[in-house]
C-alpha cells in the first residue's frame, strides 16, 4: 500500500463524517474502533518502513496549484514516523480513557477531526499543506477546551487560539517570502520542502526568516515567554484535551524546529543557539520552580510539561546527532509520560472533582494500583534510568554538552528540580495518613482506566530498557539531516558547530 499516508490522513476524516450517523449510545465503541484501526494502520506504516533508508518514504505528490507550486506532497522519515505512531496511539488512549458523559458524540467526532490535522502536520512535505493542517488543528482544540472545559474555559480557549494563530501568521509571511526567494533564484514556484532544502541563503535573510518561523513554532512549544497560554489551556481543558495537547500538539512546535528551522536556516540556527539556549534554560528552571509552587496537581504537570519541553528545545539546538535524536526521542517519551500523567489526574478528578493536593493524602492505601502507576509515571517523568524519560533527556543533554558544558549543567538541574516537585506531589497525595474521611472509600482503577493506562506503562518500561527499535531509525534520519545542515552551512562557525561526528570517524 504505497498511499498509506493518504489513508492515514483521510480515514479519520471519513470516519468522523460517518460518525454523525452513529447514535449517541454506541458512539464510544465506534470511536475506539476507528482510533484502533487508525493505530493499526500506523503500525503497518512502521513495519513496512525501511529502517535503513534515511530519506523520505511512502512519498506521494499530486499537484494542486501547479502555477503557484502548491502540491499535495506527503512523506515520512525516521523523524516523523514515530510522531505519527504516537499521535494515533495517544488518540486511541484518549478515547478509551474518555470519561465525559455530555455530548460524547461531538467529542469523539471532534477528536477524529483533530487526528486528521495532527497526522497531516507530521507527514506533510509541502509547506502550504503543512500550514493548512497546522492551522486547522486549532479549531477542534478550541471546541474541546471551550465546550467541555472548566469554569474559565472560554477565556482559555480563545487565548489558546489567538496566541497560536498570531504566531503562525507571522510564520506565513516568512513562508511566502521563502517561496518568493525560491522563485527568484530558480524561476519556478515551489512550496515543496525538499526543494527548499536545496536553497542557499545569505545569513541576513536566514536570520529574518529564522525568527519569523521561530515565532510560529515557539508559541506552539510553548517557549518562555510565550508560554502563558498553556497553563490556562491545561487548567481548563478536559482530561482528553490535556492529553492530546501535551502529547501531540506541543510536539508540532518542536517538530517544526527540527523539520524547518534547522535544515532551512543552518547558519541562522547556529547564530541563534545562545539566545535560544538562554530562553530554554529560563524555561526549564523557572517553570520547574513555578511547578513546585502549585497546589493543583494538574498545574504541576502542566508546568513540568513546559519544563521538559525546554530540554527538547535545548537538545534540538545542540546541532549534533545525539542532541537532535535525543530530543526527538524525548518528544515521544514526553508525549507518553505527560499524556499518562494527565490521564491519571483525570482519574481522581472524576472521583472527587478536585485536583488540589491538600484534598488527598495516603491514597496509596486506598488505591494501590493507581498509586503504583502514578509512581512509575512520576519516575519516568523525572528521568529515572530504565524508564523512557531517561534516554531522551540524557541524549539531549549529552548533545548540548558539546556546545556548552556550563549551560548543560544549568539545564541538568531540571532533573533535580523535576524530582523535587514530582516527588512532592507523590508524597502529599499518596503517602502519610489519610486525612480526609471521604477519601477512604475511593475506588481503585476500573477496567476502562486500566485499559488506557497499562499499555502506557508497558511502553514506558519497554522503551526505557530497550529503545533501539525506535532510536535506530531516528538516528539514521537525524544523521542525514545533520549532514545536510553541515553541507549547507556557509559560515565557519556553523560548519564547526554542526557536527557529523560519526561519519567523520568513518573517514
Amino acid at each position, binding site marked *: 500500500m504505497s498511499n498509506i499516508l493518504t489513508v492515514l490522513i483521510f480515514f479519520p476524516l471519513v470516519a468522523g463524517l460517518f460518525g454523525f450517523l452513529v447514535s449517541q449510545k454506541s458512539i464510544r465503541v465506534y470511536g475506539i474502533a476507528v482510533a484502533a484501526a487508525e493505530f493499526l494502520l500506523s503500525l503497518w506504516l512502521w513495519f513496512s518502513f525501511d529502517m535503513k533508508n534515511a530519506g523520505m518514504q511512502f512519498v506521494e505528490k499530486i499537484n494542486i496549484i501547479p502555477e503557484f507550486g502548491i502540491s499535495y506532497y506527503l512523506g515520512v522519515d525516521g523523524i516523523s514516523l514515530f510522531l505519527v505512531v504516537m499521535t494515533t496511539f495517544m488518540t486511541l488512549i484518549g478515547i478509551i480513557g474518555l470519561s465525559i458523559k455530555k455530548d460524547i458524540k461531538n467529542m469523539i467526532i471532534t477528536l477524529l477531526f483533530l487526528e486528521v490535522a495532527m497526522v497531516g502536520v507530521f507527514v506533510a512535505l509541502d509547506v502550504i499543506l503543512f*500550514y493548512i493542517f497546522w492551522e486547522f488543528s486549532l479549531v477542534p482544540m478550541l471546541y474541546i477546551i*471551550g*465546550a467541555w472545559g472548566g469554569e474559565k474555559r*472560554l477565556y482559555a480557549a480563545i487565548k489558546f487560539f489567538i496566541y497560536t*494563530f*498570531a504566531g503562525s*501568521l507571522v510564520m506565513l*509571511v516568512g513562508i*511566502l517570502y521563502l517561496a518568493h526567494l525560491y522563485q527568484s533564484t530558480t524561476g519556478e514556484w515551489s512550496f515543496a520542502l525538499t526543494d527548499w532544502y536545496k536553497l542557499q541563503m545569505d545569513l541576513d535573510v536566514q536570520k529574518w526568516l529564522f525568527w519569523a518561523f521561530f515565532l510560529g513554532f515557539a508559541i506552539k512549544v510553548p517557549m518562555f515567554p510565550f508560554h502563558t497560554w498553556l497553563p490556562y489551556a491545561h487548567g481548563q481543558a478536559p482530561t482528553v484535551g490535556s492529553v492530546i495537547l501535551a502529547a501531540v500538539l506541543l510536539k508540532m512546535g518542536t517538530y517544526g524546529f527540527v523539520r524547518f528551522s534547522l535544515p532551512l536556516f543552518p547558519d541562522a540556527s547556529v547564530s541563534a543557539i545562545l539566545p535560544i539556549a538562554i530562553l530554554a534554560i529560563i524555561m526549564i528552571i523557572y517553570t520547574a520552580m513555578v511547578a513546585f509552587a502549585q497546589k493543583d496537581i494538574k498545574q504541576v504537570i502542566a508546568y513540568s510539561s513546559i519544563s521538559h519541553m525546554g530540554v527538547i528545545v535545548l537538545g534540538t539546538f545542540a546541532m549534533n546527532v545525539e542532541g537532535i535524536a535525543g530530543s526527538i526521542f524525548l518528544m515521544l517519551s514526553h508525549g507518553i509520560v505527560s499524556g499518562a500523567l494527565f490521564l491519571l489526574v483525570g482519574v481522581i478528578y472524576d472521583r472527587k472533582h478536585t485536583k488540589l493536593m491538600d484534598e488527598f493524602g495516603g491514597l496509596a492505601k486506598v488505591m494501590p494500583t493507581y498509586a503504583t502507576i502514578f509512581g512509575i509515571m512520576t519516575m519516568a517523568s523525572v528521568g529515572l534510568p530504565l524508564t523512557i524519560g531517561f534516554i531522551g533527556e540524557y541524549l539531549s543533554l549529552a548533545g548540548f554538552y558539546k556546545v556548552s558544558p556550563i549551560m548543560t549543567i544549568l539545564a541538568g538541574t531540571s532533573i533535580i528540580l523535576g524530582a523535587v516537585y514530582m516527588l512532592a506531589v507523590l508524597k502529599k497525595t499518596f503517602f502519610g495518613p489519610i486525612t480526609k474521611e471521604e477519601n477512604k472509600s475511593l475506588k481503585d482503577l476500573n477496567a476502562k482506566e486500566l485499559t488506557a493506562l497499562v499499555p502506557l506503562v508497558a511502553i514506558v518500561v519497554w522503551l526505557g530498557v530497550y529503545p533501539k527499535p525506535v532510536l535506530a531509525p531516528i538516528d539514521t534520519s537525524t544523521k542525514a539531516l545533520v549532514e545536510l545542515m553541515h553541507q549547507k552551512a556557509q559560515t565557519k562557525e556553523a560548519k564547526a558547530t554542526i557536527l557529523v561526528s560519526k561519519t567523520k570517524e568513518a573517514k
Partner: protein
Amino acid sequence: MAPINPVNIDFSSLNLVTLAPMLVTLIGALVILIIDLIKKDLDKSLYVTLTILTLFIAVGAVLSLNLNERGLFDTILIDGVAILGQLIILIGSMLFIPLALTKKRFHEFSYPEFFALFLFMIFGFQFMVSSDNLILIFIGLETASLALYPLIAMHNTRASIEAAIKYFTMGAMAAGFFAMGAAVIYGVTGSVELAVVADVLKSRMSEAGILIPVVGGALLLLVAIGFKVSLIPFHMWTPDVYEGSPAPLAGYMSIIPKIAMMVVAVRFFNIYLDLDIVSVKNLIIILAIVTATLANMMALVQGDVKRMLAYSSISHAGFIMVALALDSLKGYSSIFLYYGLFLFTNLGAFAMLWVSRRKAKLFHDRFHHPYEKFAGMIHKAPIAAVIMAIFMLSLAGVPPFSLFWGKLYVLSAIVDKGYYLVALIMALNSAIAVYYYLKLIVYMFLKPADKDKEEVTIYANRALSLEVVIGFAAFVTITSIFYIEPLMKFITDLVKSSGLV
C-alpha cells in the same frame, strides 16, 4: 483626440455588441416594469425568477464578448478587467436575488419596482466597470447609486430610511469629489479618456510643478473611491447603512458596489503607478493599512453581528486595497480572486443573518442580530451553526476555507514586491480579526441559550430558496482547494490581457 468633436462620429464605432450584457439587464428591467403596468397582482416569485433569468442571459452575453474591443463611440472598453468585474457583479446579483423569497413578508419585495430598480442598478455597475471614460464612469456610478438608495429605503423601517438618506448624502458628496477630480484631470490633460490621460501625463511628467494638479486630481478621486470602497476615514456611513438595510442587501453592498469601484480604481491608479508617482502609491498603502487596522479595532467592540460584519468588510476592503498599489499581475489578479471568494463567504454570512430575521427585536432594544441571539445555536440548529462557523472561519482566513487562498495570494503578492512590513501588518491584522469572528463561534457553540428564550427558534425566516443560496455559498467556501487553480488561471489570463502590467 479633441474632447468634444461631434462631427467625426462614425457609426461603425458604436459596436453594439460590446453593450450586449448591459442592454440585457436594461431590457429585463423594462420588461418587469411593463408587466407591472399590465397586470398588478403578481407574486414576487415571478419577478425573482425573471430577474435571475435576465442575469443569466447577461452572464452568457459577457462570456461571449470579444476581448479588447471598444464600443459606444470608443467610450466602452471591454478588456479582461471589465469582463471580470461584470462577472462578479452578475454572479453576486444572482446569488442575492433569491433571498427575496423569504418566509416572512417584507415590504420591499412586494413591489415589482424593487426588481426593476435592482436591474437598473446592475446596469449602472456594468457600465462603470466597462468604461475607461471618466464621464461615463460617473454616469454609471450615479445610475447605480440612485437606484440603490431607494432599494434601501424600501425596507420601510425608520432605520432603513435613515440609512438611505445617510447613504444618499454621503454618496452625493462622493459624487461631487469624483466630478471635481475628473475636472482636474481634464484640466491637466484635456481629456477624460483614461488611455489619452495616460499618454498626455507621460509626456508632461517632466514639466515643473505638474505634480500638484496631477496628484491633486488623484486625491479628489481617491476620496470618491474611498467613499464607495469604504476606506477609513471615509467609512462613517458603512455600519449605519448596513445596520439599517435588510441583511442580504447589506451583504450585497459589501461586495458589488465595492468591486465596481475597485475596477475603476484599478484603471485609474494604474496610470499613476505606471508613471511611478510614489506619493499616490504610498498614500494608497497607508490608507489601506489604516483601514484594515482601525476597522478591525472597531469590529472588536460591536455588540451586533451585522455591525461587526460591516466593520469586518471595511477591514477586508483595506486588505485588498494594498494589492492595488502593487502594480503587479499577481496583485491585480488577487484583487479579483479575493472579491470572488469574499462574495460567496460574506454574502453567505449575511444570508445567515437574514434567515434568522424576525419582525420583532426579541433580544435587544436596538439590534436585530446581537451576539446573544446566537447563544446555544449548536443545540437549536446544529447544521446552521456549523455553516455559520465555516463562514466565520473562512472570513478569519483559517485554511482550508476559501478566503485563506485569497489571503495567501494577496500576502504573496505583497511579499513579492518587497513590502515585508506591510505584509506583516496585514498578517497580524488577521490575528486581531480572528477574535471577533471567534466571538460569534463561541456564542453559537459554547454558550448556553438564555433560559427564558430557549424555545425561540433562531431561523424564523427560513425558506427553501435561502437554504439553497446558503448551501451553495457554503459549498463554494469549503471546496475552494479544488477550484483555486483554474479560477486563478482564468483571472490571471483576463487581467494579463487587459494590459495593466
